[in-house]
């Protein structure tokens, strides 16, 4: 069964309707989280570092945190929230009493996770642009990278969520997957300068590395052919995981 875009949008609007009611509560913490890292690590730790990759440490940190904000926004939606809608709130069960099909639910949820990721990433981008950490206009190229990051982590997250039987397992996902990504994906230090040999290749597997590189390149206003590999990685991994998720969705949502 093919996705019906209008039904997928109806699923997306369901989440939007709820978000419109709670956005003030939601947006504030999201707003501050990356900002706290920027201030603590960027300015606090950064004051001991004279320069990093040709800029101040806080300017080095800023682009990576844009990607992290997008990752976090998308991840939360497709993990805890999607799991609750599937298993506890019976949201999908009620959607499937209408012409909505499992594929539409999946598409709508991914679209919504991208939206949430974009709200997180976008609002953080606005803040750092306002304090002069995003060199304009070059850094505007980072803006399309925000939903792309959201897509990647929506696809990874939903593929995980649809497989696990209990909500406790998300703590593994966050602590043993997203947190290491956060710490080792070129955000705090240039990963390549710490690695050699085969480890350089292994590192290319880290999903967050690629969005971080793309955003950083936009901030620096430098294009390199390797960015095509980064975009390709995101496209292929997202695509494969969405196909996988589409298969599981049918099994999870229908008896």
């Amino acid at each position, binding site marked *: 069964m093919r996705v019906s875009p209008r039904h997928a949008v109806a699923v997306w609007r*369901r989440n939007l*309707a709820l978000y419109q*009611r709670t956005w003030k509560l939601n947006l504030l913490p999201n707003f501050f989280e990356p900002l706290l890292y920027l201030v603590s690590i960027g300015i606090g730790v950064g004051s001991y570092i004279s320069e990093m990759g040709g800029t101040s440490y806080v300017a080095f940190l800023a682009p990576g945190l844009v990607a992290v904000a997008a990752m976090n926004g998308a991840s939360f939606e497709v993990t805890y929230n999607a799991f609750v809608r599937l298993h506890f709130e019976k*949201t999908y069960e*009620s959607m*499937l*009493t209408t*012409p909505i099909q499992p594929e539409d639910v999946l598409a709508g949820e991914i679209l919504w996770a991208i939206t949430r990721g974009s709200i997180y990433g976008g609002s953080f981008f606005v803040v750092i642009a306002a304090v002069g950490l995003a060199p304009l206009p070059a850094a505007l190229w980072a803006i399309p990278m925000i939903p792309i990051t959201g897509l990647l982590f929506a696809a990874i997250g939903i593929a995980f969520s649809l497989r696990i039987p209990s909500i406790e397992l998300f703590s593994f996902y966050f602590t043993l997957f997203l947190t290491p990504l956060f710490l080792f994906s070129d955000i705090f230090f240039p990963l390549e300068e710490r690695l050699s040999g085969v480890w350089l290749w292994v590192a290319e597997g880290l999903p967050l590395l690629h969005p971080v590189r793309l955003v950083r390149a936009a901030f620096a206003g430098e294009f390199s052919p390797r960015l095509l590999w980064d975009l390709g990685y995101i496209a292929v991994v997202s695509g494969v995981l969405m196909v996988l998720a589409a298969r599981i969705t049918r099994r999870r949502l229908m*008896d």
Partner: protein
Amino acid sequence: MPRVAAGFPARDPAPGVIVECRAVSKRFGSRLAVDAVDLEVPPGLCFGLLGPNGAGKTTTLKMIYGVARPTSGSVRVFGIDVAREPRKVRARLGVTLQENSFLERLSPVQNLTVFGRYHLLPPAEIEARSDELLDFLELRSHADLPVTALSGGFKRRLAIALSLMNRPELLILDEPTTGLDPAVRLSLWQRVRELRSEGTTVLLTTHYMEEAERLCDRLVILAEGRVVADGAPRQLIRDVLAPEALELEVAPEDERRVVGDLDGVQRLRSGRRLMLYVRDAAALLETIRHRDDGPARDPGSVIVRPTNLEDVFLALTGTRIEAGEGGAAAVDAGAAA
């Protein structure tokens, strides 16, 4: 009787059958939840699936609206194969799930709006339809409160309102009144009758025999995934048992002494309760009183009443539908009245 406010277009009952299940089975692992069920729901009726918990009612409904795939057999709704064209079928029906599911922090109106979008209704239609349904299901007073603030009866009515957003030709209600108080139940029955009178076909499940008896035009009784009886409620009772029941508190060891040699009386037992089915239960009671000064003389233990669907279920399966009382066993149900 309240005026009909739902604003349904008067609809001629469609020709043919609305739901047609042919030898439908559903297996979960080693468990056969639905076992070769045949079902025909004619247009314009209130059709009931009656059975205890776990009988396979919900699973049968899910196969009808195309969310569970039958292990074998076929389901057609409005003459359409639901496995092939689920969207087309579901656009024309509404389902109230056994468990409510809402956006709890939003209001009934907002919930109705979101649900209308699932059906791709245009905004003006969503607004008009929500407005009608707020009246029809008496939700107006709570229309703008968050759903968390609503009572169980309000929530159930909202759940039904959601499933009516698309003006369905077939309304499927999975245990619509379970857990509700009697007043709410009566008013929901009335709404269902009004919908039916406007041409909506209703298919509901219940484990309340009173609901089945008073609301449904036709019934299927399900036990352990199988159809054990079907027909109009009154006819079903007539087919299986005599019209009146006499209930006594009689220990199994006393049964022989009290009623042992009565001819032409059907008997069922449920725990310590012994049920006797005859044309004239009062006369039978007199007879028993003349013979024995035991239980028949204890006014607290004797009930004379019309035979009901619970008796039919007990006769057919040896167990009870409601409240799942254990240890019941049917005896001697075969004797002719």
